[in-house]
């Protein structure tokens, strides 16, 4: 297990350095002179020169890279070129918002999707199975942003049960926080719920027809124990999808955060792209890669725990 963990860590660091390096050079090639975009209408030649000196773009790109990568290994993501504040601190302010919504969406997907998947899988051909299949088709066909707008119009603008926009920090009000992330989380989760349910349903139906299940039934095991065995063998594909979904939802959150005006990573990414704030974009990339590595790592551990055959020797 230790070797497995170390190998995962090393490959994670290599992935981080490769992606960070590629992103650095791609961003600098795409935005050769960021001072115009950063200054906007205040972009006089003198101001451009002063800004270039302040942010260090008057130096060779390779020197800038050396400084940045050295900072990365010290845990310093540099300063934003737009507001000159530390990138790490700004991401740390935004990340909890995105993680709140994405985590809530993943939990919602796992619980609801799992429940529907099990029910449909255990009773194939019944109304609940047909409902899951029909729901999968309909919810997949609905654009996420449209669902989000529909939720806002109904539950925020008309019924006023939830705020239409904005985010409340949990330390300010737990109730307010839950209210502010509910609609965004539902918007993100709807598609995922049916995906998990469909996946789990199919896996259960497949596993239910295998020899070992017949053996278990012939031994007279109670139904709940049979379901536990079924789940242990059917869960891995759904868990893999859930993990991939977590990573996917991080980027999917951009649109939802915009619609609900949540101050998460999404608007920060969008604003940084428009401004040409390369250090901020690099910081967001690094943090995202770190999350991908962590999620995959945790997934491997979880799969190994659920199904010993999946453990890496």
């Amino acid at each position, binding site marked *: 297990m230790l070797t497995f963990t170390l190998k995962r860590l090393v490959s994670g660091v290599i992935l981080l350095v490769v992606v960070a390096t590629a992103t650095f050079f791609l961003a600098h090639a795409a935005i050769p002179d960021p001072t115009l975009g950063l200054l906007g209408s*205040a972009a006089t030649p003198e101001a451009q020169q002063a800004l270039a000196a302040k942010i260090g773009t008057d130096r060779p790109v390779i020197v800038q890279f050396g400084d940045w990568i050295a900072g990365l290994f010290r845990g310093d993501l540099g300063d934003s070129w737009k507001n000159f504040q530390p990138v790490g601190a700004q991401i740390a302010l935004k990340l909890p918002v995105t993680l709140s919504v994405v985590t809530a969406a993943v939990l919602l997907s796992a619980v609801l999707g799992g429940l529907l998947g099990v029910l449909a899988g255990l009773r194939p051909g019944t109304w609940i199975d047909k409902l899951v299949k029909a729901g999968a088709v309909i919810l997949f066909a609905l654009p996420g942003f449209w669902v989000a707008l529909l939720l806002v119009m109904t539950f925020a603008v008309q019924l006023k049960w939830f705020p239409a926009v904005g985010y409340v920090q949990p330390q300010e009000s737990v109730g307010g926080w839950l209210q502010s992330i509910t609609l965004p989380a539902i918007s993100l989760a709807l598609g995922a719920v049916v995906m998990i349910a469909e996946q789990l349903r199919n896996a259960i139906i497949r596993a239910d027809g295998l020899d070992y299940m017949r053996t278990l039934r012939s031994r007279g095991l109670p139904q709940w124990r049979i379901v536990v065995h079924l789940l242990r063998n059917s869960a891995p594909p759904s868990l893999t999808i859930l993990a991939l979904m977590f990573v996917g939802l991080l980027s999917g959150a951009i649109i939802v955060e915009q619609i609900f005006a*949540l101050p998460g990573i999404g608007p920060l990414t969008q604003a940084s792209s428009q401004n040409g704030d390369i250090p901020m974009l690099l910081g967001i990339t690094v943090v995202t890669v770190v999350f991908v590595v962590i999620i995959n790592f945790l997934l491997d551990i979880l799969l190994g725990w659920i199904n010993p055959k999946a453990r890496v020797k």
Partner: protein
Amino acid sequence: MKKALPGVALAAAAAFALTACTSGTDAPSDGDGGTSVHPLSIGNFLDVTSWDPSLADIGFDGPYLSAVYDPLLTIDGDGQPQPGLATDWEVSDDFTTITMNLRTDTEFSNGEAFNAEAAVKSLDYLKAGVRSQEAYQKVESFEAVDEDTIAIHLTQRDDTILYFMGLGRSYMMAPSAIDDGSLATAPVGSGPYTLGASSVPGAEYHFDKVADHWAAEDFPFDPLTISPLSDATAMLNGMEGGQFNLIYGDKTAMDLAPDNDWNVASGLSMWVGLQFSDRLGATEMGKPLGDVRVRQALNYAFNGQELVDTIGQGVGVATNQVFPADTPGYVKSLNDMYPANIEKAKQLLAEAGYADGFDVTMPMAPPFQPWQAIIEQTFGELGIGVTFKETDFMQYMSVAPEYPMFVAVIAMDGNPVATVERQIAKPQWYNPNPGVEAFPEIQAQIDTVFSAEPGDEQIAAIEKLNELVTEQAFFSVWSQSTNTYISTSEFEVTPVIGMMFPTLRQIEVVG
């Protein structure tokens, strides 16, 4: 960028009076003679760039900064500088020294006194700031003459400095906060509010009212909240949901206003059209543009009103000028100079030797794509083969001036001298080579503008200059777009050209 291009957001001026003046506005009061307060929750399009005024943008930062800082000068809806912490000012006869008298009853939120020394420290800091320095290009030095008087010494006459100071470049900061370098995160000004501890950066900023502020009655907003939301739909949802009572609006919000009893305020912001970056025809591809008849043909070719009706959804003003409509410098009769006439355009091209048109490459980025089809169609009718080189939004500003002409959405100024400087005479990112020296009559008129006595004489000179550049088809302007602000019935907003979102001083309680 936000100020210059759409999608990021896509703004009446008056003569620039370099004379001493004073003013003040009355705040609404309740029946007992006390000032009534009104909760104000603003949905702004962008987050504050920086709480440090030297690093802040003018565009959308106005409401944030005007809450915590007092400026030396403010500006009114006509672009006229008005008193702030400077109670009055005087410009020397040679136009190179501006003397300002300061308020003596003000202190910063950390208890430090505001005086001439503090003002000079702030001004020196602003002059060195990467974004604020644009206002102080011709300043030689700032001097504390006495406890409540400062002098601004200029290297040469500058008819725009008071305008830029009033626009948002003269916020005064506590000297110790400048020394600490902490302004970007912990603003310390003498403004009508302080930044509340419960603010969530990037999400919602709460402000605590300063009860004994010298102009407290001008700021009857309490509580005051400003939330940045870069999505028009989200802002409208927040307005409909009752979370906001003032937002940066769009056409949809304007259409919903009558049914909701909302006030709508619109102000001109940007001109839209073709910028000729090679009007001298110095490059091989730009050669045709060196002929005034070709530039005039491109003015006749486009129907500005049609573009306002279709692409602008009826919002905007069709004009062929870079001076904001109905402000000093703008000449209404010039709008008749190039009525849409494709046949006339063809005739002019033929006279210039381009009866079969010519080929041109133009840059294109997503925010400008709404105009791509109409350019292709119009150029096609004229025989002009246009190839669009796709680029991204960020690169557009860098590469656009390298082409002979490009689709431009350029921020306008409420001050006509600033318009002369930034649109015609001085190099800017969108006009790196103004080339006015090749147009002796225009160059002479620019000199006349910069040497004329401020007031009617200067305005007349500017109008004459506008006539000349329009005759010479310096641009192919199609229209001027607007910024719109939607507020609940108790608030009224006065838009200011040059600001994408006005300061708190331009928000009034009317209900």
